[in-house]
């Protein structure tokens, strides 16, 4: 650190002030942060928006997904939030707790009722907290089966299983039909999603008493967790993490596993990466349910929100409304392959005719949100951690669930304190 650093700082500061002066002209520039490929592709939609709103310019800042959450929080702490931003819908409770997002209820009043009803209800619910809407879904995401039709048929199942019992029988048959290196299903052991989905299907509440304590020792969760562990104990699923599966698509093509639980981004990937002769032999299916009714999955996806402190909220809202139009949603699907949040956009021909998207549309009618509290990501992380320990048999099921409850109770301590003081967290 040299002493000449200080004058340099002063010069930079002066330049910064000068920069502010020149920006004060007639057009409003909306700063919009979007992640990954969405941040890149959304630019193609903007010329139309800027044509319709000559007074508004949009500056898109593209942020990698891996750094997005940290960057948004840091921007909030540093008081440099964008006017509008994309966020994973499980982050919404956190940004609401920060008071970083603007409630949209007033702005949504002029909307016709049909427009909000057009959203998948389970997905829209993740954007609402205590009766207020804080963001609008941009695209949706859920998890279901990608499976090998040929292997399942060879094992004696013409249709994908719809109940847990059939599912278990189908997996056992798949395992028996192949050699020792064959598994029925791939479930990366470092993920929390499947144990949670199974628990939700079984009717588990995950947390109890206004989301103040962990509820992982309740029978419903324990049974679902035991079912999950059994898949590894019986050798139906290999005990590997994501990083260890060298090339997922190659292994799927080779038949190392016949079922994979994944999201819509893999429709495109499977189409591109699986060899041509395998293309007729894979399909998607909604998840089986405990009792054979509709099996629920997770309500995932990304939403768009306005920053509460932005002075350009009016202009940003116009952009948000524009991106929410069914026509723009359909175009965005064509650009990215992201599934539209509005059902009318699905009637766009490309999506209506996609055979792999059908199961997603069905599954999206039966999605459940994870508990809407800021601590959820941490809790999910602990679930993945203890699930991995239990799969590796370093803890037995009861010890794992007791430890999980203990950790989660500690994570929720602040929430209990806030609720006890009568403050909305």
């Amino acid at each position, binding site marked *: 650190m040299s*002493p000449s650093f*200080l004058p340099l700082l002063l010069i930079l500061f002066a330049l910064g002030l000068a920069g502010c002066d020149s920006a004060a002209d007639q057009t409003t520039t909306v700063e919009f942060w979007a992640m990954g490929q969405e941040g890149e592709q959304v630019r193609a939609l903007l010329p139309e928006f800027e044509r319709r709103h000559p007074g508004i310019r949009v500056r898109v800042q593209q942020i990698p997904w891996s750094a997005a*959450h940290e960057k948004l*929080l840091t921007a909030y702490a540093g008081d440099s939030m964008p006017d509008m931003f994309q966020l994973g819908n499980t982050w919404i409770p956190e940004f609401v*707790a*920060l008071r970083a997002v603007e409630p949209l209820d007033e702005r949504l009043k002029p909307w016709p009722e049909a427009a909000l009803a057009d959203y998948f209800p389970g997905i829209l619910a993740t954007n609402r907290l205590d009766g207020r809407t804080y963001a609008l879904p941009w695209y949706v995401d859920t998890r279901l089966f990608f499976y090998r039709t040929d292997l399942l048929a060879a094992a004696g199942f013409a249709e994908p299983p719809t109940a847990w019992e059939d599912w278990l029988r189908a997996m056992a048959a798949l395992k028996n039909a192949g050699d020792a290196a064959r598994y029925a299903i791939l479930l990366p052991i470092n993920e929390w999603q499947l144990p949670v989905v199974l628990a939700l299907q079984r009717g588990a509440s995950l947390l109890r008493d206004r989301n103040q304590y962990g509820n992982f020792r309740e029978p419903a969760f324990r049974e679902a967790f035991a079912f999950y562990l059994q898949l590894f104990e019986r050798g139906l699923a290999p005990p590997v993490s994501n*990083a*260890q599966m060298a090339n997922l698509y190659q292994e799927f093509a080779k038949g190392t596993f016949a079922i994979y639980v994944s999201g819509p981004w893999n429709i495109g990937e499977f189409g591109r990466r699986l060899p041509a002769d395998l293309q007729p032999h894979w399909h998607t299916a909604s998840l089986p349910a405990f009792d054979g009714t509709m099996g629920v999955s997770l309500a995932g996806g990304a939403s768009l929100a306005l920053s509460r402190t932005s002075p350009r909220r009016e202009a940003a809202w116009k952009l948000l409304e524009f991106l929410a139009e069914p026509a723009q949603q359909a175009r965005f699907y064509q650009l990215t392959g992201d599934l539209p949040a509005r059902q009318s956009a699905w009637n766009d021909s490309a999506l209506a005719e996609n055979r792999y998207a059908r199961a997603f549309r069905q599954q999206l009618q039966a999605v459940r949100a994870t508990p809407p509290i800021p601590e959820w990501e941490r809790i999910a992380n602990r679930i993945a951690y203890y699930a991995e320990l239990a799969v590796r048999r370093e803890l037995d099921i009861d010890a794992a669930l007791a430890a999980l409850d203990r950790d989660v109770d500690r994570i929720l301590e602040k929430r209990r*304190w806030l609720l006890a003081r009568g403050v909305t967290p």
Partner: protein
Amino acid sequence: MIGPERHAALSAWAFLAPALLLIAVFFFLPVLAALLLSFTDFDIYALGDLDRLRFVGFANYLQLLQSPLFWTALGNTFYFVVVGGPLSVAVSLGAALLVNSRLTRFPGFFRAAFFLPVVTTLVAVAVVWRYLYHPRYGLLNYGLSLIGIEPIDWLGDPAWAIPAIILMAVWKNFGFNMIIFIAGLQNIPAQLYEAARIDGASPWRQFRHITLPLLGPTFLFVALMTMIGYFQVFAEPYVMTQGGPANRTLSVVLLMYEEGFRWWNMGYASAAAFVLFALILAATVLQLRLRRKQVQDG
């Protein structure tokens, strides 16, 4: 009237002031703030509204010491320090001796070649090493298969992940210490070796009784800096394993980063930082003491 001595002192302060000011503002102030933070439960609730901040005394420290994850991270960090530190120093010294040897041709070339990994971006290096370590398609396992060794899942196997990261870290960093050792070696007067040779000392005894003692201060510096570096190991596991498999490569700084910037538990993360600071300080003082004792005894 200001005397000449006071005058000199004043101008010294005046010249020092800008640097001191910057150090105070950008170093001491943040450290002090972090210390205060470590006695609070600063989290995203407090970030949104300071009314939701609590002073919790030593609760963060107590919770840290009761957390199995912290002890896992501490154990891993000690593994890095105890295995990686000496290995790093030994490899650097070996390379320095080789490059500095009279028998080596083109020492300048080797010096530059060995230094190259130091100036390469860590992330790029880590990505390449991940390919080398790939369990099925990696070069390392291919080499091992030629001599009949079963493939090892370097970064996925809990037993191998830390050794794999240490190997990469040693390769990445030995060049820097090597340069310092070479400088130290070149400061040893040649006539000492001449005299030893005339007395009939073997190369090993020359190394043991001339090189090592005269490299003492260099050795201390290198050992301290390497030790501190391994205590603070972060980027290597962050890029290569994210702390996995099953937290086997989670270091204290990585834990601190996760708590602080992923979960935004600033109070807890600050407490972890100060515990690590205390440990590094203690280890440094211990090394200095040992060195002093060695000099007195020697």
